[in-house]
C-alpha cells in the first residue's frame, strides 16, 4: 500500500479512466479469483495480470486466497457464489475439493475458468501451462549443453497437478537419455520454499564437493530454482548450472546476474496467464463457447539471450520472442470491449 509512484508515462494510465462510464453489457462485471496459494512473485504477477485485464474490460476483480488450505478454498468458492459474482477464476486446487462448488456455480449461471486445477466439470474452461513441453524444453537444453552426459540433481515435489505433469516428461526424458544420471532428488513446498531449498541444496553441495559430481540442477519450479541458485552462488561453485521452470520477474533478475548459474527456464508469463484466463472468462460471459481445454504456449528463455542491462518481465518481450505478447483468448468482441 506504500509503494511509491513509478515513473509512468501519461498514456498508460489514461486507459482505466475511460472504461468507467462505459455502458457495454460486459462492463462492470464482478470477477472473483479463487487461489489456493499466494506465494512469491509469481502469484503476485499473476494476480496483477488478472486485475489488469479485468479492469481493462471495465470490471472489478476480488481475490480470495486460502493460504494453501483447500477447505478454505472450497469455502471461498462458496462465498463467491453467494455473493453473486459474475464470473469465477480458479487458480490451483484439486478437483475433489472444488467440483461441488464449481457445479453450484454453473447452476447459478456463473461461468468458471480454471488454471492448473484438474477440474472436470462440463462447461468449465481449463487452462494449463504446457507443463510437459516446459519440462522437455529445459531438459533438452540441459542435455544439449552437456553433450548428453550429465549428473543432475532433481528438485521436485509431489502433490501438485502441474508438478506431476512435469514429472511425466522427466521420466520419459531420463529413459530416453541414458547418459543423464540423477545423483539425488529432493524438494518440499513449505511456508518458505526458496529458503528451505537453499539450505537443503547447501547440504547436497557438501555431500558432493568435487567438480563433476554434479553437472546441473533441474528445478521443476522457480521457487526451487531460486533456492538452488542462491546455494550454488554462496558456495562459490561455478561448475553447476541450473535449469528451471516458470519465470517471475524476480527470477529474471537472478538469471541476469553476472555469472548466474541459472542458464535457462521455460515459462508462461504469469501476467499473461492471468490475462488469458480473464479473456476466456469474458468469452463465456459473452455467450461464446471457447474450447474447454486451453494449453498455454510456453516460452523458452535463455540467459545468453538477455541483454547486459537488467530488464523486467515487462520488457522481456523485446528480447524473448512470444513473451508477454500472447493474444490467446482474444475475440473481436473483447478487443472492442477493451477499446471502450
Amino acid at each position: 500500500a506504500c509503494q511509491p509512484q513509478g515513473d509512468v508515462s501519461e498514456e498508460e494510465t489514461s486507459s482505466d479512466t475511460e472504461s468507467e462510464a462505459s455502458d457495454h453489457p460486459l462492463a462492470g462485471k464482478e470477477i472473483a479469483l479463487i487461489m489456493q496459494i499466494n506465494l512469491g512473485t509469481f502469484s503476485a504477477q499473476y494476480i496483477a495480470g488478472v486485475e489488469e485485464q479485468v479492469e481493462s474490460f471495465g470490471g472489478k476483480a476480488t481475490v480470495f486466497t486460502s493460504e494453501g488450505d483447500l477447505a478454505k478454498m472450497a469455502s471461498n468458492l462458496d462465498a463467491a457464489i453467494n455473493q453473486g459474482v459474475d464470473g469465477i477464476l480458479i487458480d490451483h486446487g484439486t478437483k475433489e475439493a472444488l467440483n461441488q462448488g464449481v457445479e453450484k456455480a454453473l447452476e447459478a449461471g456463473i461461468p468458471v475458468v480454471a488454471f492448473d486445477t484438474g477440474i472436470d466439470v462440463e462447461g468449465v474452461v481449463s487452462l494449463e501451462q504446457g507443463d510437459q513441453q516446459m519440462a522437455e524444453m529445459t531438459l533438452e537444453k540441459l542435455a544439449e549443453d552437456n553433450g548428453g552426459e550429465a549428473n543432475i540433481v532433481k528438485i521436485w515435489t509431489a502433490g501438485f497437478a502441474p508438478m506431476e505433469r512435469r514429472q511425466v516428461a522427466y521420466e520419459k526424458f531420463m529413459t530416453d537419455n541414458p547418459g543423464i544420471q540423477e545423483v539425488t532428488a529432493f524438494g518440499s513446498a513449505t511456508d518458505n520454499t526458496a529458503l528451505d531449498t537453499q539450505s537443503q541444496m547447501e547440504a547436497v553441495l557438501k555431500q558432493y564437493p568435487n567438480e563433476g559430481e554434479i553437472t546441473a540442477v533441474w528445478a521443476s519450479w522457480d521457487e526451487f530454482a531460486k533456492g538452488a541458485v542462491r546455494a550454488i552462488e554462496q558456495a562459490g561453485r561455478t561448475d553447476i548450472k541450473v535449469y528451471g521452470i516458470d519465470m517471475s520477474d524476480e527470477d529474471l533478475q537472478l538469471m541476469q546476474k553476472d555469472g548466474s548459474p541459472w542458464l535457462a527456464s521455460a515459462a508462461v508469463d504469469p501476467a499473461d496467464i492471468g490475462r488469458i484466463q480473464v479473456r476466456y472468462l469474458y468469452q463465456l460471459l459473452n455467450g461464446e463457447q471457447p474450447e474447454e481445454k486451453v494449453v498455454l504456449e510456453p516460452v523458452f528463455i535463455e540467459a545468453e539471450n538477455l541483454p547486459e542491462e537488467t530488464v523486467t518481465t515487462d520488457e522481456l518481450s523485446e528480447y524473448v520472442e512470444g513473451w508477454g505478447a500472447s493474444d490467446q483468448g482474444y475475440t473481436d468482441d473483447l478487443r472492442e470491449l477493451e477499446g471502450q
Partner: protein
Amino acid sequence: MQVAEKKSLGKNKNSVKENAIQFLFKYGAIALLIFIIFYFSTISDAFFTYGNFSDILRSISIVTLLALGVTFTLVVDGFDLSVGSTMSLSTVVSASLMVWYDMPLWLVLILPLLIGVFVGAVNSFLIVVIGIPDLLATLSMMYIVAGLHRTYTEGYSIYNNMPLTSGGTAPGQLSEAFLWIGQGQMLGLPVPVWIMLVMVLASYVVLNHTRWGRVLYMTGGNAEAATLSGVSVKKVKFTAYVISGIFASMAGILFTARVGSGQIDAGAPLMMEAVAAVFVGYSVLGAGKPNALGTFFGAAVIGILLNGLTILNLPYYAFDIIKGGVLVAALAVTYVYAKKKFSKA
C-alpha cells in the same frame, strides 16, 4: 452459567463507568456481532442470505472442532498447541486408509480417532508425569506429530488412485459415504454444520451442566484445592488432553471429507485460528473463561468477519490485521474487566 452478578454495591463513585464495563463485557461481543452483521447486510444483498450463512457455518466447522478441543484443555488450565498437527495426521491417515488400504468406512473413522486419543495421552504423559509445562510439552508434540504425518505419507498428499512410490497406483478411493460427511446436505444444512452444532452442544452440556464439567472447571480454577477435595488432577488433565486429541482427529476427518483428499499440513494454519476463536469466546456473555458456546461464537465472529470483508473487497492481506484487532479487543475487554473485578476484592 456465571452470568449472575451481584448487585453493584452502590458505594462506588464511578459505578456508571463500572456498569458500562460490566455491560460491555457481557453483551459487548454479541453487540459487536449484531453490528457486523447489520453493517455487512447494508453493504451487500448477498450477505444476509440463508445460503451465505449456511456456507459461513460450514466454513467454520473444522476450526470450531479444533477450537473445542483447545477449549477443553484451557478449561483445565492447560493449553494444547498440538491440535493442528494432530488434525494433519488424522487427515492423511483417514485418506490413506481408504486410498492405500481400501479399508471399510468404520475403520476409517475409528482409527484416526484412536490416534487422537494416543496423541492426547502422550501430551498428558509429558505434562502430568514428566512435569513439562503444558505449552512446551504440546509445542514439542506439535513438531513430532507434524513430522510423523509427513513421514507417514513421505511428504505426499493423498488422493484417489495416486501413484505410489513403490510403483503402480493406489487401489482405493475416498468412498461416497465418506465424502458425504464433508460435502453432503441434511435437513437443509451441510453435514459438517450438523456435526459442529452437535459437538458444540455436547461440549456445552458437558462443561456447563454435568458433574464432569464441574470437575474440569474446578480443576482449572485451582488444582490444589481440587486435589484436596478428592479430585485426581492427573486423571482430569489426561481426560482433557484426550478429548482435545479426539476433537482434532474429528477435524482432520472432516477436512479429508470436505476436500476429498488427504492434504499434508492441513491443520497447521488452523491452530492459531482455533486459539483465537477460543479467546474471543472468553468474553461471550461475561463468562470470562473458556466455554463451548463462546468458542463457537468466537469462530463465528471471525468467520463472518472474513466473509464480510471479502464482500467489502478488502485486500486479502489486510485480513490478519482485522483478526488480530478483534482478538486484542476481545482480550482487552476480558482482562480490563478481570482487573476491575480483582481490585474490588
